[in-house]
């Protein structure tokens, strides 16, 4: 990936689908991610947004941050609503009721709405082959309702429903590999992205919109409130997640894996964990265990990239 630095950033689109003035916490990585995604999507788009942080912060009555058509859906049916919108547009164009203007349909949800509650609707939409882009903004727990664990919460993280203490290390299960589940549907485009690498992320969102058929983009959104990290470290944490190998940035185009940023040699996991209060209680043994898992997962991914 090209590292464009500070100058090309001034050339990024000035369209803001998500207007400022919303109620996200200080240092919210997800609001940043949504803003970047909106820049990449442009204005000719309809968004179906699951319940979650992004819906709460952007649409408190009587105000709205959205400058594009936007539908609030339930946790479980975001992908279903988006497929309905897509089919509706297609059908109206076919019957000549409304000519097709190339409007894109985007579904967005958090990690709970994607990997727990909305999984079956998502799986259905991906399998039926609707021409939509599904973006998962993964902040690794149900942050909006008060930091409850989800299946996307990483091992060892302390949340309010997986609290760390004498008997517990916090979350006891490994993070669900959602991009792999999406890729297993054999859809044309799956990618992981991070707002800490804005150009890479915008490129992936654009690519996801351009491909015909379903596309899935998994975005790691740092949440200072839930991760118990300093608010000025959100962007850095996103980069560290990539450089430590916790969240490698890759894309799967028609089954072909490609690593977009090669972080090797990997940074020690401790660089990433020590900045977050949710991992503060971890013993060296547990950290070693997680580190081993991160390296082995990363090696597996590298092998997939080398094979395709």
């Amino acid at each position, binding site marked *: 990936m090209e590292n*464009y630095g500070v100058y*090309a950033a001034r050339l990024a689109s000035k369209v803001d689908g998500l207007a400022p003035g919303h109620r996200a916490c200080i240092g919210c990585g997800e609001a940043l991610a949504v803003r970047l995604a909106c820049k990449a999507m442009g204005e000719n788009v309809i968004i179906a947004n699951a319940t979650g942080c992004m819906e709460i912060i952007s649409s408190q009555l009587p105000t709205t941050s959205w400058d594009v058509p936007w539908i609030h859906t339930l946790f479980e049916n975001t992908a279903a609503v988006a497929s309905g919108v897509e089919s509706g547009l297609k059908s109206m164009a076919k019957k000549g009721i409304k000519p097709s203007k190339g409007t894109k349909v985007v579904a967005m949800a958090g990690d709970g709405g994607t990997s727990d509650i909305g999984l079956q609707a998502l799986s259905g939409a991906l399998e039926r082959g609707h021409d939509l882009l599904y973006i998962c903004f993964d902040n690794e727990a149900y942050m909006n309702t008060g930091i409850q664990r989800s299946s996307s919460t990483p091992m060892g993280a302390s949340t309010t429903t997986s609290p760390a203490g004498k008997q517990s290390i916090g979350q006891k299960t490994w993070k669900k590999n959602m991009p792999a589940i999406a890729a297993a549907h054999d859809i044309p485009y799956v990618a992981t992205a991070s707002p800490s690498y804005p150009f890479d992320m915008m490129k992936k969102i654009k690519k996801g919109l351009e491909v015909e058929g379903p596309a899935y983009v998994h975005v790691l959104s740092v949440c200072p409130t839930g991760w118990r990290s300093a608010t000025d470290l959100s962007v850095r944490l996103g980069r560290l997640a990539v450089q430590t190998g916790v969240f490698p940035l890759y894309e799967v185009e028609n089954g072909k894996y490609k690593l977009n940023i090669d972080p090797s040699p990997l940074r020690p996991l401790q660089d990433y964990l020590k900045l977050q209060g949710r991992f503060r209680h971890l013993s060296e043994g547990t950290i070693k265990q997680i580190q081993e898992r991160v390296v082995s997962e990363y090696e597996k991914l590298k092998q997939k990239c080398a094979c395709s």
Partner: protein
Amino acid sequence: MVKITIDGREFEAEDNAKILDVAKSHNIYIPTLCAHESVSPAGTCRLCLVETTNKEGRNRVVPSCLTAVEEGLVVSTNSEKVVSERKTAMQKLLARAPESPALKTLAEKLGVNGTPLPAEEHHNCVLCGLCTRVCQEVVGVNAISKINRSTEPGAVPFTVNIDDCIACGSCAYVCPTNAITMTEVGDTRTITWPYQKQEFKLAKCKVCGRYWLPEKQIGYMAGKSGQPKEFFDTCMDCRK
């Protein structure tokens, strides 16, 4: 404020706003290649041509990126005249860069199949000049400039002054046809322009040992920001 009509719809627009910007803000599609919201318009690609009729009834085909709105102006973005002129413009661009995937996609979208004109060059540059404007107006280093635009064989249409270039890659980012590319391998960043190629050394972070910034940018950024040069010894992630 003035009132104008675009494709039969009436809009209010700011005085001196350009037709292209007004159309864009109302979601009316006009194809463009050399226009960018961050730099001044140049009107080089000729794809944004529209037909205008003013109050006196004067009918013209003009580039919408350069033409300001006026009271009572009637604009058509896809009249017969516009479509045929746009097709000619597209064919000329295709002759300039016949193999450019981005150009081919746009041509297909506009319904232009190939070009009857002989191919002039075999790279992706269509001389839209967006890189030169970005280098001057956004980055402020003026490293790329257009020269010798002529039909003479062998005339290089633009050059990059490597001494001035800070290897920021903005030209590669903005290039609409991917004629300029940037790659990074190990400690070297390579930028390839249609007639030139240059390798730039990257600076190493003293803490983590990663290459993170072109050495040429350090001096430039230190001068602009007033930070001491040692500030750039460590990368953003290792900085305390």
